[in-house]
């Protein structure tokens, strides 16, 4: 071989080593992720917070509460166990964690961002979500992280605040929210998928929510009924102010009940005998608004522990079972019934009956979440029967809503026969296994009942 060629080749080989490998490790797609953003705006975060809130309020928790409240029943597989109170500390992990991660982490970012920008309305809206989620978590688990929650840099292992402190903090947050919502900010705010940034609607919602959380403390502190009444007076004033999830008929933004009961896990959960029996006994038209019959011509529900069969009823495919059913979470109706209960508990029975009938009358006009139904006014009720009527009405109206559990724990109405082999309906869900494993020094031992719910309901 030509010796020049030889020399050239000898030189070329090491040259390859040096050529072009400066910054070989720093290519454009090497250190930036080509498909995921590394920053998020408050608007983007708020859209996701709403999705997280709806998943929290109308997902697995709503199914569990509905089974325990016997408006639904677990009729197959794991839901047979869940429906009869056999749950482990690993079963409702996401329901415990979702309000914190990502919701509160992102809400805190929005709150900081909007405080800096001085957008009080946006700030107020995020504070309402903050309070709602934390209030819901304390309703279910009792003592929970609140003051140190979702601040990972400062508090990698948040302490568990006492439940009464969390409720107090939630009320303060709502007060701040109401005050901020009275200020100025971006209106309309299209990423607010509920009220489009309408601050008046948010203020009313915040008051209803304050009333709701006051009621939750009333078993431990009866003075809360008056506070609940005062707030309900300022709460949602018409069905136009209802907080309703705007589900669509598209997969991924459709109603969780439809997804679960029809698309994903048919038969795992079926309509519950207790609600169906109450509606049937009263000849209440909501029976057929909620349900359709199965193989049996009658609308038949399942008792706790009963296995699925063809005879069982189903959710009305044009109503509660529709893919785009507009699920109510907080409504004018609930506000009226809070008022009715609070009036009753503060000694104004005629006022209570009036509020109850106002709520029943509201059914006469169709809303996004129910057709127009004519419900006769109730008369001649007083004493225990009046309370029974108010709470039974609320049990029916708040079908599928996790608030029914709080009402039951406080009033024991309607009386529920616990699933076979149990003396009581559980008052809480055990703390999350992940929290126990990772934050063991702070997670309290699981108590039998929460502070706000000292007394179990007696079995009928």
């Amino acid at each position, binding site marked *: 071989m030509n010796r020049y060629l030889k020399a050239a080749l000898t030189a070329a080989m090491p040259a390859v080593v040096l050529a072009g490998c400066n910054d070989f*490790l720093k290519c454009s797609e090497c250190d930036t992720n080509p498909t*995921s953003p590394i920053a998020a705006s408050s608007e983007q975060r708020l859209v996701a917070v709403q999705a997280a809130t709806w998943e929290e309020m109308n997902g697995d928790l709503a199914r569990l509460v509905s089974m325990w409240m016997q408006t639904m029943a677990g009729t197959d597989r794991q839901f047979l166990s869940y429906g009869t109170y056999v749950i482990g500390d690993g079963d409702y992990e996401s329901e*415990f964690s979702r309000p914190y*991660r990502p919701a509160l982490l992102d809400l805190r970012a929005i709150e900081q961002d909007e405080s800096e920008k001085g957008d009080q309305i946006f700030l107020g809206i995020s504070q309402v979500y903050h309070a709602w989620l934390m209030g819901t978590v304390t309703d279910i688990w009792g003592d929970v992280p609140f003051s140190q929650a979702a601040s990972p840099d400062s508090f990698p292992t948040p302490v568990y605040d006492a439940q009464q402190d969390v409720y107090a903090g939630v009320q303060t947050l709502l007060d701040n929210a109401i005050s901020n919502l009275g200020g100025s900010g971006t209106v309309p705010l299209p990423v607010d998928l509920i009220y489009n940034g309408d601050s008046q609607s948010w203020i009313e919602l915040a008051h209803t929510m304050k009333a709701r959380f006051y009621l939750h403390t009333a078993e431990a502190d009866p003075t809360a009924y008056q506070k609940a009444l005062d707030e309900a007076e300022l709460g949602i004033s018409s069905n136009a102010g209802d907080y309703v999830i705007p589900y669509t008929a598209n997969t991924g933004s459709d109603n*969780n009940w439809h997804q*679960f009961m029809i*698309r994903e*896990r048919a038969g795992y959960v079926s309509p519950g005998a207790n609600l169906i029996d109450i509606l049937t006994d009263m000849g209440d038209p909501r029976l057929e608004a909620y349900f359709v019959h199965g193989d049996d011509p009658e609308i038949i529900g399942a008792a706790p522990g009963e296995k699925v*069969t063809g005879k069982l009823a189903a959710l009305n495919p044009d109503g509660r079972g529709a893919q785009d059913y507009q699920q109510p979470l907080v409504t004018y109706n609930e506000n009226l019934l809070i008022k009715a209960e609070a009036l009753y508990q503060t000694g104004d029975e005629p006022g209570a009956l009036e509020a109850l009938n106002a709520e029943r009358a509201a059914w006469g006009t169709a809303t996004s979440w129910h057709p127009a139904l004519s419900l006769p006014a109730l008369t001649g009720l007083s004493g225990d029967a009046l309370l029974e009527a108010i709470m039974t009405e609320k049990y029916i109206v708040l079908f599928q809503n996790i608030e029914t559990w709080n009402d039951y724990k406080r009033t024991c109405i309607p009386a529920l026969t616990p699933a076979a082999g149990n003396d009581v309906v559980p008052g809480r869900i055990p703390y999350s296994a992940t929290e126990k494993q990772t934050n063991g020094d702070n997670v309290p031992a699981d108590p039998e009942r929460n502070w706000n719910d000292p007394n179990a309901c007696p079995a009928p």
Partner: protein
Amino acid sequence: MRTIVRWMAGVACSALLFPALAVAQQGTTISGKVTSEAGTPLASVSVFIEGMNLGTITRDDGAYTIVVPAARATGQQATLTARLIGYKSQSAPVTLSGNITHDFVLAANPLRLGEVVVTGAGTENTRERLGTVINTVDSALIQKSNEPNVVNAIAGKAPNVNITSQSGEPGASSYIRIRGIKSLSGNAQPLFIVDGIPIDNSTVATGASTGSTVAPNRASDLDPNDIESINILKGPAAAAIYGAAASEGVIMITTKSGKSGPTRVTLRSSYSIDDVNREIPLQRKFGQRVTCSTPDCGASADSYGPELAPGTPTYDHFGELFHTGHSSVTDLSISGGNDRTTFFASAGYLDQNGTIIGPNNWYKKTNARLKASHRMFDRFTISGNVAYTDANGAFTQKGSNTSGILLGGLRSAPDFNNFPYLDPETGLHRSYRFPHPSPASVTRSRSYDNPVFVIYEGKNDAEVNRTIGNINLAYDATDWLNFNYTLGGDYYADSRLEALPQTSSAFPTGTVTRADMLNYEIDHNLTAKLSHTFSPSFSGTFLLGQNLHASRFRGTWAYGYNLIAPHPFALDNTVQWESDESKNTVHTESYFGQATANLYDQLFLTMTMRNDGFSTFGKSEPRAWYPQASAAWTFTKALGNDDQTGVLSFGKLRVAYGETGKPPGVYQTLTTFSSSSFSNGWGDYLNSSLGGYGGLFSPSAPGNDNIKPERQKGLEFGADFGFFNQMADLGITRYRNTSTDVILRVPRPPSSGYSSALLNGAKLRNSGWEASLNIRPITNEKISWDVGFQWAKNKTEVLYLNGAKFFDGGSVSGGTFSGSYGAATVGYGFGIRGYDFARCGITTLIDISDGCAGAPKGAMYIDSTGFPVYDPEDRPIGNAEPDWTGSVRTNFRYGKVSISALIDHKQGGVIWNGTRGALHNFGTSKDTEIRGETRTFGKDFMPGVVAGPGAGTPVVIDDAWFTDLGNGFGPVASQFMEDGTYTKLREISVAYTFDQPWVGRSLGLSSIDLRVSGRNLHTWTDYTGIDPEANLGGAETLIQGIDYFNNPQTRSIVISVGLNR
């Protein structure tokens, strides 16, 4: 593209018609014949002139001819060497002038001590000098296995290299585990190197790994027939040369090359008949609990109905889904060349039709390869190697998925006929829970799909086009300095379609998933090697190298929902779409060096150092070092035994230490926001973008800018012995590999705002023994017989999980199932966690003290009703790691007939039989046939030690038990953990070679091989699930040993014919 391949195959075939052109002009011709000591002519012996890059291989009659061009034959002295694997090489001095005849008689060297072993990244060594154990699987063994997936061909052939195939379906993936589990993320598959360049061996199911369909592991794109040998680097002591990419070991594949000499043509064709090897026992005595007859009525899910009247037709819901499958493989290879140019060209076609009935269970693969080498100048050789694969498959839904064929099939009531799957009146999907579809049910769920409907009406396709190739330049600058450069590429496009028709249970309105994946890797590897002999007793080499590697992945998944018309399964025919996109790029830049020393031809030392930089490493430590050192000492030479004879004919001691790594996943240093959805494990979910507005939320873990590669440190020592004139050999290896800085998604309190953090810190250890014993009692011209035993034991210890007691994240969990999940547990190892029945001395969360006084620890507590109770404390309930694995292989040859067999054994290792658990609930499991009968726990039901107030109380076992605590959906998973011990007759074959003169005279061929083999003919096991070898997630999940409606494995009879010329 397939047309082109067929055409190329046609061209290649026509080459058969032309006789090879002899290349003979002038100069010196060296010819002769090579025979064994027994007198047999030896074919395929490499005969070459050292230092001149001239050589050939012998023909079937042992004859060879080398032509030295006149310009190079100047009467000089040269060394002529004959080398064949399994024989001692032999050299002879020749003078290059005139015509020379030299015959060789090679002595058998069953230890293959002189065999050159590729040791990675451009390094090689002879087997005698290796300080670590490197197992080799050669082409003959690969061919005998009859496995179209090269990974399966390794099964049972190397100790502690355990293969698990996902199922027997065409195109199913196979999982490799070498010396235990070393990491907590990914699927932990070894690095695959083909002819010096890394190739992708990922496994990606179109949907969820636990549902969806099987998917191939991409190394199956290789044509097994192209493979000359596979070398396996098992531990860090051997694999350190590959640094941060090699913690799971390295599978190094060398493809066949042409040899100078006459053109050789081989056409091999095989035909295989396959059927399902095991089935799930089902009861056919009791019928569906509640049947129904009105339009769109729902019948009960379970079969706890009345005992069926005699004569009631019942159906074989397992057997009806399977039939006999058949596959064919045709491979043509042509190779040859002259003293400057050699080539190997091949084409292969695989056509597999699987054992699932219907049109959607097949895999077809077309391979073509051209490998050629040309010596442009005496010291400069250029080579190229390009292989193309076209693979297409159709699959069926499996596993944990309401459309999975066995999920719906095995739950079907025995008295329900799944045929016809379409209602005769409405033409719509009927199933045992939805037996009478009305015309209004076009988009209604059937709860579970009729499996026959899914088989015929579903559509799950994959189309892969792949090219792997390289260019190699070798330049011997001087006698002591060699340069070698390889530029390689691996490119594939993988296009998938997965469609569920309308009325399918998971998507009653129908869905179409399209996935397109593109993977592109380029590898640059440059080495410079210096060799020097300092004195007769001291020589050495020094190698320096650089490697640059770039890999890119592009994936898009588009999901269409709500089919407009029932067909076609196309995105445009759906109402609504969602998408996923994945893109990533990883660059690596590495430098390595290796020094070897040979002292007195008996002590061999090797030192290696590699420095790796990966673009995925965190900023605090952007580069990492991986050292290695080993020593091998042939002590029998020190004892004066140079010729490998006597009782202890050979003895070598070896010790090696090395380190390897595993890089962090791509983009783990970054905190990125998610735009995915919120869900709860039951299938319902809500997108984070709603109302036309984009939503983003914080990730579950922040990025970790300081993430480092995982590090594995391994110490390995052992000895190799030859006995009785090398009639037997024994190798023993002991190793201990410690994995540190293992990346772990450490759970954080979700209430802190992040639910996990990605950290280095976990520590795992694998230690074990490996042994192999080969005996060749008879080796002569007429008869030869050899037997080989392999045995291996590995123990994986989980030493530290950053303070956590167990870890069940990511691919460790193996999927989410009721009552059981995969986990790594400190002090226990990897396996399944879940719940057990309450047991004396173990249970703490519930009070069972009333009955445990005096009872032995572990006694199952029986309460006053006579039944056991559930212990709500989750704990490890089964370790999937085998106690040991072993295999026995034998070959017996009598004249032209040879018989061989391979038996593979796995001792221990627990499998979760989730199928049985689920079928308890549905009353179709054979176990449930005893319903209504009286049994006593601990005696004739769940035998074992029992205690408690109800111990010994007979109870009626009925559906209340089987659908409650005795049910796989209930909490107690421990009752479905089964011993996965098995013995498999993996291979047995009888072969005959026709090489009589008539073969050449009448057919123009040199020989014909005829072989009849059985593959996986029998499995001996007590496991009651589908197969103790199956794994639901295939090669996608780290945890193996999960059986949940897995599709079955197969057994085959294979007939193959090889025509050689």
